[in-house]
């Protein structure tokens, strides 16, 4: 049993923490949010140069990491900095799925991803499938030499910047069958693909996609037709770990801001941190943040293990992060008072970003249901 990071990961952690702390300011974040992609090209390049993108991929895929604790280490720092760059979407979610399904044909793209010159997005969510991974309505019909895609995708994060979109589509079966789901790679400028993009709460950009008779070649199919579900689940498990680690970093940064505030802010003639009622509430928040840290460790340690154990920890960790994230965001705003609600102070951005974690890859209730099915019933 050992809860120390390896030396390599500790070095990555230090370097990344230092880089982000030196680079991200309120001004750079606001500039990023105003840009067409919703993030900073300069920071993206910086992350690539530091090797952070490569740390998300295995050696097979051209990276030098990719394990649970690699993801946890990187994303805790991303969270701590409140960074909005699409490491999760390009690197873990779409990149991970491409690495898993794409075979040799994907090698060149992955190289470009790791080098920081290629952006990806996964288009899976649809207006009515909420967080389900087995519900896909968008259809792909076989044509001579390819497929024709028709349907809608919603809240596709990073679609605005993506060069390629990985689109889940139904090639057979009913809307809720896990069999019959395929993944296609579709260029952002493909005819018939309409992308309506918008900013997201807490940073980044998302988009509504309408695919009207989008024709792709056979080579656009990733992996075996109709058999993408397992890879989709695995990619979401990895993305869930990443976003949970990011949430942990956000909480830890919020913890620091809030304890600082309690120590320095005076009211009724003394630091508000002297008021016992606030002390005890802060203590409860700290207890829960430790729980969140342990939950992230549990998922990281089981990410590449047996899928039953992995799925159990995905559900457990995301449910716990949902509850603790809400507590931390709400209590930190409350303990700050009015200043905690302004966008002029970092807390506002961090709390929004933390809150939005609940809306990706399943919220607390979704994972409560899953956990019950896996471990209680």
């Amino acid at each position: 049993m050992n809860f120390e990071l390896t030396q390599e990961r500790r070095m990555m952690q230090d370097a990344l923490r230092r880089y982000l702390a030196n680079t991200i300011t309120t001004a750079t974040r606001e500039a990023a949010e105003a840009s067409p992609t919703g993030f900073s090209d300069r920071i993206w390049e910086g992350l690539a140069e530091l090797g952070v993108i490569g740390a998300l991929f295995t050696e097979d895929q051209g990276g030098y990491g990719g394990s649970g604790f690699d993801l946890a280490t990187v994303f805790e720092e991303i969270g701590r900095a409140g960074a909005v760059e699409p490491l999760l979407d390009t690197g873990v979610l779409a990149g991970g799925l491409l690495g898993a399904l794409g075979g040799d044909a994907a090698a060149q793209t992955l190289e470009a991803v790791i080098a920081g010159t290629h952006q990806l997005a996964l288009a899976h969510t649809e207006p009515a499938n909420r967080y389900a991974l087995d519900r896909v309505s968008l259809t792909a019909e076989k044509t001579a030499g390819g497929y024709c895609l028709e349907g809608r995708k919603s809240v596709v994060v990073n679609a605005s910047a993506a060069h390629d979109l990985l689109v889940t589509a139904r090639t057979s079966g009913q809307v809720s069958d896990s069999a019959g789901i395929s993944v296609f790679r579709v260029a952002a400028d493909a005819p018939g693909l309409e992308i309506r993009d918008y900013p997201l709460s807490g940073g980044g950009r998302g988009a509504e996609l309408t695919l009207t008779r989008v024709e792709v070649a056979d080579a656009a199919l990733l992996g075996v037709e109709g058999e993408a579900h397992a890879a989709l689940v695995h990619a979401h498990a990895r993305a869930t770990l990443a976003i949970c680690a990011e949430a942990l970093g956000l909480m830890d940064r919020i913890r620091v801001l809030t304890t600082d505030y309690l120590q320095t802010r005076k009211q009724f003639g003394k630091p508000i941190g002297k008021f016992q009622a606030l002390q005890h509430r802060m203590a409860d928040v700290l207890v829960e943040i430790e729980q969140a840290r342990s939950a992230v460790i549990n998922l990281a340690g089981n990410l590449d293990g047996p899928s039953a154990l992995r799925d159990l920890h995905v559900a457990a960790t995301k449910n716990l992060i949902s509850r603790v994230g809400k507590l931390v965001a709400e209590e930190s705003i409350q303990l700050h008072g009015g200043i905690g609600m302004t966008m002029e102070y970092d807390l506002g951005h961090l709390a929004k970003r933390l809150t939005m974690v609940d809306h990706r890859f399943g919220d607390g209730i979704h994972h409560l249901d899953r956990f019950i099915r896996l471990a209680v019933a």
Partner: protein
Amino acid sequence: MDLTFTPAEEDFRKEVRAFLEAKLPERLAEKGRLGRHLSKQDHEEWHAILNERGWLAGNWPREYGGQGWSAVERHIFEEEMTRACAPRIVPFGVAMLGPVLQTFGSEEQKAYYLPRILNGTDWWCQGYSEPGAGSDLASVKTSAVRDGDHYVVNGQKTWTTLGQYANMIFCLVRTNTEGKPQEGISFLLIDMTTPGITVRPIVLIDGQPEVNEVFFDNVRVPAANLVGEENKGWTYAKYLLTHERTNIAGVGFAQAGLEHLKSIARLEQDNGRPLIENPHFAARIAQVQIDLMAMATTNLRVLSQAASGQAPGAESSMLKIKGTQIRQEINALTRVAVGPYAMPFVSEALEDGWNGDPIGPDYAMPATATYFNNRKLSIYGGSNEIQRTIISKAILGL
């Protein structure tokens, strides 16, 4: 014990409902239903309609242009207003300053200002909070120094809601720095167009500039604008805070919010079934509905006490706490209900003049902004921590 309203009260309810059906512009009601933002003109239009009927300040005494409504009538009026999704009455002039002027103002002040509140000539805002003061209102630093027939005001106010629309501000200012902090505060009415006043919007986490900072740099205010006596402002401020706390429970808002939440949860799909059939989501709706049913009765009990002349004490603090907990839980569940569509953040979509299609279902767009905006409920108007202290002092006497 009787949980029903009197026939006269039921008649009044019908009258209000009929009025709202006839007079509330559908455009405004729709904005309310969809959580869109109201413009200054929207508010003014609605105030004018209410004023025409004499209901803009129904709780004011008749001599000042009100109806002298009882607490129960006010409750019924507010319940019907929320039910109809009518814009809420902007409180600063009608609910806050009005009662203070009526009780402590000079005859000249009453004769001049009260009609202007009703006819919309003046839009008031509140200059209470200061940076670094938070719930410690008595630590007012903004100074007013007497100079002939004027006070010269210097300092800064903050969290001034809708200050960008206001032409007048009522302020707590420090006119004496000796003795207890409460004993050197005065209550001053200030014209926002006076030279030396700067208003700076503060953008909140929902993206809206709802509140402002107001800076005073050698602002000359006629001494006639002092309300009551110099250094007695704390008394008037506390009186105002008591009035601010009517409808503190927000029962109507909560009921409307809960119905809206349930309608969303019937439309949203979760694994091919309506979300409302998910037992865990249904459980959270049920708990908050059960809590709201009890809180609505607590609210009526306090109203009924008020009607029989008992001043609400710790009870209104209890209503503030429970009322905000319930509304915030409803807001949180609404955010959760809309699923991934909680993420798009297009604040202009909530404004007039936005013609785009909604992103996702139309009910989804304001869910996150409303959730974040209403975190303020437990912070302002005396934070819930302050309310807990009030309750425990009242009960424990320690």
